């Protein structure tokens, strides 16, 4: 299959707008589940407002949240796909820029030193583009994640040491969720990276935070840690919007990688309750959209 770059550009424009408007089914189910279980009266009102907002956005065909976030495109290229890598990156960037200018969306992207906004959602190394490979024949998947800043501002890395053990990892996750409080727009998905190098660890935390609800870490030990921490964070009482209650997080997700004998790194990245993402799948039959 030859990947058509005009289709990639169009899809990358469409994906940004779609992601901002319609929440994935797993997130909608997740917030309803939290609402049913919530025991705090104030938290119930907060969750119900969030649920109302989801339907208002769909009814009014509007964006869920005003934060258009930092645009992230995760590309997975299957087997037997022909493409020009630089043209692929350019097409993604163009799609992102067109969504911003044509819709128009608020460009939330500025130069880190001058703080100048080009009003295109693009800049140096932005959108963030991650390219990986899969064994799916003649298939390319592009996932778009607009990452809101409230949650992104509460990102943490600790180069713990082997003597800190797994308890050091667990304690750091709890401390991070407590220190973030209501600033991350809870209930969140708490993404945890364990192991690898420092940069891998942070990237794993981000992947974990944007994984669909209901999915598990493919490593058995990682999956066990997810279950234990998912229960623990919802005992903290932070609640939706940090106003108290049971619903601090939808779940804790863990991604891990083997690490050095002297390292024990742990990273935390959170995704807010408006856990937006959209996916386009390219096959010889055409482009289809989902989450």
């Amino acid at each position, binding site marked *: 299959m030859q990947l058509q770059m005009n289709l990639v550009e169009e899809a990358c424009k469409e994906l940004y707008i779609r992601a901002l408007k319609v929440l994935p089914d797993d997130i909608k189910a997740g917030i309803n589940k939290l609402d049913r279980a919530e025991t705090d009266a104030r938290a119930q009102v907060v969750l119900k*407002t969030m649920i109302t907002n989801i339907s208002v956005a769909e009814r009014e065909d509007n964006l869920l949240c005003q934060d258009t976030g930092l645009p992230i495109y995760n590309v997975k290229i299957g087997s037997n796909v022909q493409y020009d890598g630089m043209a692929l990156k350019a097409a993604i960037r163009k799609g992102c820029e067109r969504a911003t200018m044509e819709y128009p969306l608020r460009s939330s992207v500025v130069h880190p030193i001058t703080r100048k906004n080009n009003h295109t959602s693009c800049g140096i190394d932005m959108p963030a583009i991650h390219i990986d490979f899969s064994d799916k024949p003649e298939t390319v998947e592009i996932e778009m994640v607009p990452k809101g800043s409230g949650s992104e501002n509460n990102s943490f890395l600790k180069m713990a040491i082997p003597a800190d053990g797994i308890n050091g990892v667990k304690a750091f996750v*709890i401390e991070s969720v*407590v220190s973030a*409080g209501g*600033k991350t727009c809870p209930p969140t998905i708490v993404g945890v990276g364990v192991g690898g190098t420092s940069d891998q660890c942070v990237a794993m935390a981000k992947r974990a935070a944007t994984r669909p609800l209901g999915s598990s870490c493919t490593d058995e030990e990682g999956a066990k840690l997810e279950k234990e921490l998912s229960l623990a964070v919802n*005992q*903290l009482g932070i609640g939706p919007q940090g106003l108290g209650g049971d619903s601090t997080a939808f779940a804790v997700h863990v991604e891990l990688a083997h690490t050095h004998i002297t390292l024990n790194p742990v990273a935390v990245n959170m995704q*807010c309750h408006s856990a937006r993402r959209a996916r386009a799948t390219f096959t010889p039959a055409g482009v289809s959209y989902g989450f």
Partner: protein
Amino acid sequence: MAHYVLQTPVSEEAIRKLRINDTVTLQNTLFGIRDATQIHMFDHDRKTRFDLHGHAVIHTAPNVRKVPISKAFPAGYEPICIGTTTSDRMERFTRPLMTQNGVRMIVGKGGMREGSAEAFKELGGVYLAIIGGTAALETTWIEQIEDVDMDDLNPESLWRFKIKDFGPLLVAMDSHGGSIYQEVKSDVARKKEAVLKSLGITP
């Protein structure tokens, strides 16, 4: 837990009546303000032509569409999606907003810290919590973008919104030292010890 409908601008007396857990619906005018707006106002000494005395500001940077100036769009902007951002980043601007510009209400999400709590108590102000990430709903409470100042900072301009039935908003920090965030923080600190213990972690 009373509900108040407040027509902006409001007096100090009206603000002093509000207690945490009360709810408020705002009418008339709301100003949009953000990090860059306040950095320019208070660090770069830029003055706004708007009179903010007795008014409410919301921590926001909206999605807007540029349109020709008309009766419906007097500032040349059509609102698309307007919500709120995390207030904590703007903590150090609460006091100057109140002392220099006379602001009495801050609308935002996630709460503010002790410095803001002290300013609210001393000067007569409140923090009204709106639900972060529910901008589609909040946009329906905004009738019009009436005016805009410091628009070179767009989208972090100083916006003047005409609002109708903007709320209910939760009084989360009042002018008597009350703060729901402080209450939750103390509760969480206590619960955290039990959570760490349940994970087998001892200090």
